């Protein structure tokens, strides 16, 4: 374990990649992910890693290069954000259906328009149905830790799917925070060597990757991704247990805070989780029975874990840093499906917030708690918008 250092989230990811030393990184810079690829290309230029770094001409090309490299038998990482992730959209599905365990950092930034470079989760939500796993980090330490765990989860033979490691743009990517790095050997041992499956470069086992599948096979091949997602829940859990042994930091798919005897619970992802716990502590000091749930793994969605944390509660507020105009937002919809078979389920409300980098003030979360404790509020609420 290193001395704690002050570092931003993008650098923390670049440092994690440096320790893992992937075979290939292909990327295209985009705010607020840029520091990751800039810093990592310095490591490549300085000979500090053995990685082949490919400067692509677009994000679509970057991910396509990653898929080719992965099929060839390489361990591959990339990073993007916002419009860059949207530009990869076609290839996101291809990556997952070809079962390429690529690790991609997503510096969460909103989507145009209006054009805006600041944080929300709309970009990652666009990839939510693509067959990628999605981990959300709360702070710089988690951005680093999630990255290391992601390689092991993605490359597990029962999973073999790509993972997005999401971190809030600017709030985590650019803010200096405390980071404790593991030493290089611990990281290398934890991640282990890359085990390719029928690499294209193996001429003794000729393989065609990504052929067409007609109506008689498409559904079964799509179901393979579903089956791997199911397996990934256990693999992720086990990986988090093992990570605790080497790091002393214990993570869960969904993490409850003071939920045990709570009647009112707030659910969120990313950097908001810290603000949420601060507000919970304040309200607890006033004798209010409130708690918080942070969802770390969004895909596959840990429905059973979330349901367990919400069982017997009176009301739940789901905070979404993304919106789905015309219906409830993604996290809300998943919380609802998690409790849909529950006897006497809690009253669940959706709160959209923080779009386009709008600051979240602790007092706003206090108001959300007050609203659900008073049995008020609509099913879907747009917190703080000037109507």
């Amino acid at each position, binding site marked *: 374990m290193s001395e704690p250092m002050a570092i931003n989230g993008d650098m923390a990811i670049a440092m994690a990649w440096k320790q893992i030393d992937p075979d290939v990184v292909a990327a295209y810079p985009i705010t607020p992910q840029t520091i990751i690829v800039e810093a990592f290309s310095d490591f490549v230029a300085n000979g500090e890693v053995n990685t082949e770094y490919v400067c692509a001409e677009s994000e679509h090309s970057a991910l396509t290069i990653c898929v080719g490299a992965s099929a060839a038998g390489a361990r591959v990482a990339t990073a993007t954000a916002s419009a860059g992730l949207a530009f990869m959209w076609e290839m996101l599905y291809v990556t997952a259906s*070809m079962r390429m365990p690529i690790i991609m950092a997503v510096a969460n930034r909103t989507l145009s328009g209006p054009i805006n470079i600041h944080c929300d989760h709309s970009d990652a939500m666009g990839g939510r149905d693509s067959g990628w796993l999605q981990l959300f980090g709360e702070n710089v330490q988690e951005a680093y830790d999630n990255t290391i765990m992601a390689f092991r989860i993605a490359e597990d033979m029962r999973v073999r799917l790509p993972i997005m490691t999401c971190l809030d743009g600017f709030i985590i990517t650019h803010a200096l925070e405390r980071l404790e790095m593991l030493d290089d050997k611990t990281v290398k041992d934890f991640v282990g060597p890359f085990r390719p499956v*029928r690499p294209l470069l193996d001429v003794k086992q000729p393989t065609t*990757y990504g*052929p067409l599948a007609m109506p008689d*096979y498409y559904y*079964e*091949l799509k179901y*393979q991704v579903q089956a791997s997602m199911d397996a990934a829940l256990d693999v992720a859990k086990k990986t988090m247990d093992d990570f605790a042994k080497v790091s002393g930091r214990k993570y869960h798919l969904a993490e409850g805070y003071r939920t045990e005897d709570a009647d009112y619970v707030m659910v969120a992802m990313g950097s908001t989780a810290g603000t949420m716990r601060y507000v919970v502590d304040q309200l607890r000091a006033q004798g209010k029975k409130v708690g918080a749930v942070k969802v770390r793994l969004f895909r596959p969605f840990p429905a059973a874990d979330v349901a367990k944390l919400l069982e017997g509660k009176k009301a739940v507020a789901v905070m979404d840093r993304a919106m789905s105009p015309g219906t409830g937002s993604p996290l809300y919809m998943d919380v609802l499906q998690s409790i849909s078979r529950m006897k006497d389920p809690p009253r669940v409300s959706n709160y959209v917030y923080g779009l386009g980098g709008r600051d979240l003030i602790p007092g706003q979360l206090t108001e959300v708690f007050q609203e659900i404790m008073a049995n008020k509020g609509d099913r879907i609420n747009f917190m703080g918008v000037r109507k």
Partner: protein
Amino acid sequence: MANEGSSSLPAGGMIIEAGSSKKYKTGEWRAQRPEVDKAKCTDCLTCWIYCPDNSVMVKDEKMVGFKYSHCKGCGICANQCPVKAITMKEEGVE
């Protein structure tokens, strides 16, 4: 109709058997059939080079006809033949 279950298919639909495209009878797609007039043909083998389905048959360096099991009737050979020895005929019409 296929009957393999999802779990018994290679991951991601990989094809793990070499040369399996032979089994895919693209000839079933054909709407037009190439026919060669050997009186005009100079055996230059341009058609053999251009055919995307490896369906021009060659024996002893001579062009000897088409493999209709895989010829999909694209007409590239007829288009490329420098002496116009290949004509495309409607399938099902004499």
